[in-house]
C-alpha cells in the first residue's frame, strides 16, 4: 500500500469497499497513513500528536471482531480541542500542554464505537481563535495546494490532514467558520450541522453559544455517514438536541433530483467584493442546481455590515470567561493574538454582550422568514482564495479588510443563527487554489442541505490536471477514484520526505 497515492485521496466509501473485499486490512490502512504522515507532515504541521499505538490497538481489535458498518477500520483524526482518553488536549497552546484527557469526547466515543480508528490530534489556531490558522508554537499549516498560502483556520490541521491524504476524514470546531473556511480553501467538503445537532461534550470550549462540531471529508456522502454517526442527543450535553437523526446517506443517494426545491440566492453582500472567479464558480453551481430541477429566487438578508462585530462581541467575553482560569497563572504562555483578543473581551461592556445576543435573535427571526420562501440558500464560501502566509489584510473594494474577517465573512453569520451549512468545492481558481460554495438550510434539515450540496459538486468539470503545489500542472487519470470525484488533489508526493515548510 505504501506507494498507492490514489488510496490516500480516496473516499471513505472507496476505502470501506477495499476493507470489506479483503484488498487490505485495517492494520494495513493504519500503517499506510502512518507512513504518509511520517514522510510528509514535517512540511505541513497538520498533526500535534500521532496516536499510533492507540490506532494499532484499535485496528487489531477490528481485525479480530470484524464489526459491521462502513466506518469499521476507517482512520480519522480530530482537532486538538477534542478529548481523547490518555492524550493531551493542548488546544494548540502551551497553556494547556499537560491537560491529559481521562475520557473520550462524545464525538470520539461515537466514532470509535462505530469501529473508526483515532489516529491523532490535529493542529489549529491557538484555542480555535483565528481564521488564519497561524500557530507560533506548533507551526503554521501551509495550504497543500500552494505552500506559500494559508490553509485557513482555525481547524487548519484538520483541513491540511485530509487534503494531504493523511486521513480520509477529520473533525474540527466551527465558531465563525473554522471548519467551512479552511475546507473551502483546501478543496474539501466542510459541514457545520445545526446548533445542538452534535454534542460538544469533551470538546474544549471557545465560545459556548457559537461553538459547533464540524466535519471534514472528501465527498458529501462521506460527510453524511460521519454526521449520522456523531449526531443525536447526548444526555451529558445540555445544549444537545433530541431531534431525530435522519438517514443522511440515503437522503443524499436518493435525492439528486431537486424538483420542488427552491433555492435562495442573496445577491447583496454575499456577492459584493468577491474574487470574480469565485463569483463565476458560484454562478456555475447555481446553474447546475437549476438544471437539476431547483427553482432559484433572490433573497435578502438583514444588514450584514455589523454581523462580524456582533459575533466578536459574543465570542470574546465567552472565551475570556473560560480562559480566566489560566490567565493569571499562565498568561505569559498565550500567543500574542489570542492574548490581545482576551484583552478585548475584558473591555466589552456587559450590555453590549447582551445586546449582541438579542441581535442574534433578530437575525434568526429574519432568516426564518427567508426560509419561508426557499428551502436552501447558496452563497460563495469565502470571498477570497487562500491568502498568502503572513498576510494581515486583503483588499476589499477600495479598503483593506483584516484577513481573518475576510476568510469568515460569509460563514460567521450562520454560527449565530445556528442554521446548518456546508461548503463543497466549486472549482479551481486560475491561481491553482480551490474555490468553495456554501449551502445553508433550515435547522435540522441537513438531509436536504446535503442533497443540494452533492448536486452542487457535480458542477465541477472532471479535472484534467492537478496542481503540484507551485502552480504547475501534472496530468492525472480522470478515471481514477479521486479524479472521478471531480476534485483535483494537491499532489504533495513530490515534496521530499521530512522537508519542513
Amino acid at each position, binding site marked *: 500500500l505504501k506507494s498507492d497515492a490514489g488510496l490516500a485521496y480516496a473516499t471513505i466509501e472507496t476505502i470501506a469497499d477495499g476493507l470489506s473485499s479483503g484488498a487490505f486490512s485495517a492494520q494495513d490502512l493504519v500503517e499506510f497513513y502512518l507512513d504518509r504522515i511520517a514522510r510528509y507532515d514535517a512540511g505541513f504541521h497538520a498533526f500535534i500528536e500521532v496516536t499510533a499505538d492507540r490506532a494499532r490497538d484499535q485496528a487489531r481489535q477490528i481485525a479480530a471482531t470484524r464489526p459491521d458498518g462502513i466506518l469499521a477500520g476507517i482512520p480519522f483524526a480530530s482537532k486538538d480541542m477534542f478529548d481523547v482518553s490518555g492524550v493531551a488536549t493542548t488546544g494548540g497552546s502551551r497553556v494547556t500542554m499537560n491537560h491529559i484527557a481521562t475520557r473520550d469526547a462524545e464525538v470520539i466515543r461515537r466514532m470509535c464505537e462505530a469501529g473508526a480508528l483515532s489516529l491523532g490530534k490535529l493542529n489549529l489556531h491557538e484555542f480555535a481563535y483565528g481564521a488564519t490558522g497561524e500557530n507560533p508554537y506548533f507551526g503554521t499549516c501551509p495550504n497543500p495546494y500552494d505552500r506559500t498560502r494559508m490553509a485557513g483556520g482555525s481547524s487548519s490541521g484538520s483541513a491540511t490532514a485530509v487534503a494531504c491524504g493523511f486521513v480520509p476524514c477529520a473533525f474540527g470546531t466551527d465558531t465563525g467558520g473554522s471548519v467551512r473556511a479552511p475546507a473551502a480553501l483546501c478543496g474539501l467538503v466542510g459541514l457545520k450541522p445545526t446548533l445542538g445537532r452534535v454534542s460538544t461534550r469533551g470538546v474544549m470550549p471557545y465560545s459556548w453559544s457559537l461553538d459547533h462540531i464540524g466535519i471534514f471529508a472528501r465527498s458529501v456522502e462521506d460527510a453524511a455517514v460521519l454526521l449520522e454517526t456523531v449526531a443525536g442527543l447526548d444526555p451529558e450535553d445540555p445544549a444537545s438536541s433530541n431531534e431525530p437523526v435522519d438517514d443522511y446517506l440515503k437522503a443524499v443517494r436518493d435525492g439528486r433530483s431537486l424538483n420542488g426545491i*427552491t433555492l435562495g440566492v442573496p445577491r447583496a453582500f454575499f456577492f459584493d467584493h468577491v474574487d470574480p472567479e469565485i463569483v463565476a464558480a458560484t454562478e456555475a453551481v447555481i446553474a447546475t442546481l437549476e438544471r437539476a430541477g431547483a427553482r432559484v429566487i433572490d433573497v435578502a438578508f438583514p444588514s450584514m455590515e455589523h454581523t462580524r*462585530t*456582533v459575533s466578536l462581541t459574543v465570542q470574546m467575553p465567552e472565551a475570556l470567561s473560560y480562559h480566566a482560569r489560566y490567565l493569571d497563572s499562565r498568561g505569559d504562555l498565550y500567543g500574542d*493574538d489570542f492574548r*490581545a483578543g482576551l484583552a478585548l473581551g475584558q473591555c466589552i461592556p456587559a450590555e453590549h454582550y447582551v445586546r449582541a445576543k*438579542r441581535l442574534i435573535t433578530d437575525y434568526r427571526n429574519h432568516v426564518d422568514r427567508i*426560509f419561508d420562501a426557499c428551502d436552501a440558500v447558496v452563497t460563495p464560501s469565502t470571498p477570497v482564495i487562500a491568502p498568502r502566509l503572513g498576510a*494581515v489584510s486583503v483588499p476589499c473594494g477600495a479598503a483593506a479588510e483584516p484577513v481573518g474577517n475576510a476568510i469568515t465573512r460569509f460563514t460567521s453569520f450562520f454560527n449565530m443563527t*445556528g442554521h446548518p451549512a456546508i461548503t463543497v468545492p466549486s472549482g479551481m481558481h486560475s491561481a491553482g487554489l480551490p474555490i468553495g460554495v456554501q449551502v445553508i438550510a433550515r435547522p435540522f434539515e441537513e438531509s436536504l442541505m446535503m442533497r443540494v450540496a452533492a448536486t452542487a459538486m457535480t458542477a465541477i468539470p472532471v479535472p484534467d490536471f492537478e496542481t503540484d503545489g507551485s502552480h504547475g500542472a501534472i496530468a492525472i487519470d480522470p478515471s481514477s477514484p479521486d479524479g472521478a470525484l471531480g476534485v483535483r488533489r494537491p499532489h504533495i508526493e513530490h515534496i521530499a520526505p521530512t522537508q519542513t515548510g
Partner: protein
Amino acid sequence: MASRPGEGKTPMDPVSRSTLIGMGRELIGHPMRDADIDELVDPKLGIITGFQALLDQLESLRRIDLGALPPAQGVRRRPREECGS
C-alpha cells in the same frame, strides 16, 4: 414615547492608550500587557478589528431599538406548517 437609544447623546471621544492602561489598572481583574493594549489601539496581527472600530460599530448597534426581544437561546426545528415554502 420612548426615545431611541443614543438619541441626544454627546458623541464619545476616541479611546486612547492611556484610557486602556487606566482600565487595566483600575477596573479589570486580569492583567493586560503593553503588547495587548498596543494591538487593541493599533491592530497589526490581522485577526481582530481595532478596539476603536469595534466601539464605533457597537455604538451603531446600540441605536437599534430591539424592543423587548430576548437574547438568543437554543435552535429548534420549525414545524412544516410554519414554513411558507
